[in-house]
């Protein structure tokens, strides 16, 4: 799994909050998700730093929380079923600038290899720039054309099936009513028109649009001009708690997709043994339960059968 998006859209913040949510999923699922100890420490530390947002003053621009990523970070995860390891997963977090890198960049080859191997691609999008910024600001902050260029060869040349999650962050201010949500969706579809058309033409890709709240207590307020550059200003709202919302959803979609692909790609011998011991039925049931907790309210683009889990 790989996260893509320009720098500053909230990839690392999303990953840290998703990991925290993953620990909670362990209590409510037949699957067990275990990170390596180092990954666990890194992501828990990052989450702790995010929670310090509630100590920041209200109504003033928010201060720094996490530092930017400089290269490619691999986060190792295992999925266990009935105590037995089923699957090794790697979440790749990248420096935003890599989406623009050319062949001369020292990380280019590694990045491209990871992108080609990825089953799930998470494009993180700055929602405030999508809605409030002019065309140029939105294109600068989210770089949809660059993302299209980047994914074009990955999705076309590579015959593998892909789940593409468009996770919109920094959109707390537009998740309060249906009208604002609709506006968010329309702006996304306008700016990502080329990519959506591509997804809809291909059989091996499904896209899901999911706005999330990573912090919950920080909202966009205004755009300021700083040295001729437009800057999005976010402030902490006094009446809101630190409360990530919908963060389990990208995870549920991604993990259910990975488990489904894993189950479909088992070797014949493995399938026979599992059938013999009746393991297949239990696994399928657990997967169905896990997948059914996915919200059906998100807009889906392309081949939706790729994410269907049949009972």
């Amino acid at each position, binding site marked *: 799994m790989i996260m893509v998006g320009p720098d500053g859209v909230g990839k690392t913040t999303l990953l840290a909050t998703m990991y925290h949510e993953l620990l909670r999923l362990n209590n409510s699922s037949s699957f067990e998700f275990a990170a390596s100890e180092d990954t666990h*420490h890194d992501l828990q530390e990052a989450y702790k730093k995010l929670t310090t947002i509630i100590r920041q003053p209200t109504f003033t621009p928010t201060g720094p929380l996490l530092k930017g990523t*400089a290269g490619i970070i691999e986060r190792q995860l295992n999925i266990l079923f009935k105590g037995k390891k089923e699957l090794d997963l790697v979440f790749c977090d990248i420096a935003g600038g890599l989406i623009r890198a050319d062949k001369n960049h020292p990380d280019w080859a590694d990045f491209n290899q990871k992108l080609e191997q990825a089953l799930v691609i998470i494009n993180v999008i700055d929602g405030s720039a999508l809605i409030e910024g002019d065309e140029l600001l939105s294109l600068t902050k989210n770089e949809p054309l660059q993302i299209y260029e980047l994914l074009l060869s990955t999705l076309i040349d590579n015959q593998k099936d892909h789940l593409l999650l468009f996770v919109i962050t920094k959109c707390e201010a537009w998740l309060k009513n249906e009208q604002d949500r609709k506006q968010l969706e329309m702006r996304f579809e306008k700016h990502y028109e080329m990519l959506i058309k591509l997804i809809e033409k291909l059989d091996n890709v499904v896209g899901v649009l999911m706005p999330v709240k990573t912090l919950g207590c920080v909202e966009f307020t205004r755009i300021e001009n700083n040295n001729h550059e437009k800057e999005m200003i976010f402030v902490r709202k006094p009446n809101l708690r630190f409360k990530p919302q919908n963060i389990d959803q990208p995870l549920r979609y991604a993990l259910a997709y990975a488990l489904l692909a894993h189950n479909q790609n088992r070797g014949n011998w493995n399938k026979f043994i599992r059938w013999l011991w009746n393991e297949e039925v239990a696994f399928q049931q657990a997967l169905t339960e896990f997948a059914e907790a996915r919200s059906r309210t998100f807009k889906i683009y392309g081949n939706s059968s790729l994410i269907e889990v049949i009972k």
Partner: protein
Amino acid sequence: MVVKPVDLLGAAVHTRDQQPGQDYNWYIKAGDLQLFDQADEIYRLALRDVEGEAPKLAVILKEQRIGLLIGDMPCQRIDHVNREIYETLYLEFDAPQFQKNVLHAAAMLLLCPKNNYKRYEKHFTDYAETLFYNSSHATHLVLKTVKLPIVSQQPDFSLIPIEHQKLALFSTLENRNRCARYLIHSTHLNTHHFSFISTGRLNLDKCYQIAHQSEECILLTLSQEAQTEVNLQRSKLSFMLRQKMKFSF
């Protein structure tokens, strides 16, 4: 903070600028840098994006040159989304003349308490910022000397000395002391290519990769995989087998 000016041959600064697209990279490469590729490799493998509270630094000694990398230092600047900008400074010196000074400086950074380390970080980021703001002369070394910390406290001599030539140690106070002792008292390292690295949670895979590239290499890591001393001269397979056997019995 006790420091001593030392003549430099070259310096490099890895940081980012404020605007979108001005990403982390080596913005300055000035003077005569012969070990830069090795320093960059170590930075990318062992210091970049490695979390955990530990001194993040490296020493590379190769033939007539010695390099000092000091990584992950927060500077005063912030980027376009209000994040602190970090800097990594690479300094290169003439080894026959200044090997002792550089090894002592690295030892001091390992021994000093957290608050003092922050003062040293400030000292080195000031230096890096001076280079950064003179980026119009990016290949010309604007500062000819740098002040390096000198030994003002001795490591604990009662601890077991380091013996293996390729070793990963968990970064405890005790092991930092052992490494400092090794650096202070091995001023005439009998090797053509030595590296020392202190970093955060760097996994064993990467420790092995680094060890593979040096004749002699000592690594301090906070990775849970290295809670006991790991002899990196042995193959990784043998390490994994021993771990497996340890847990089986």
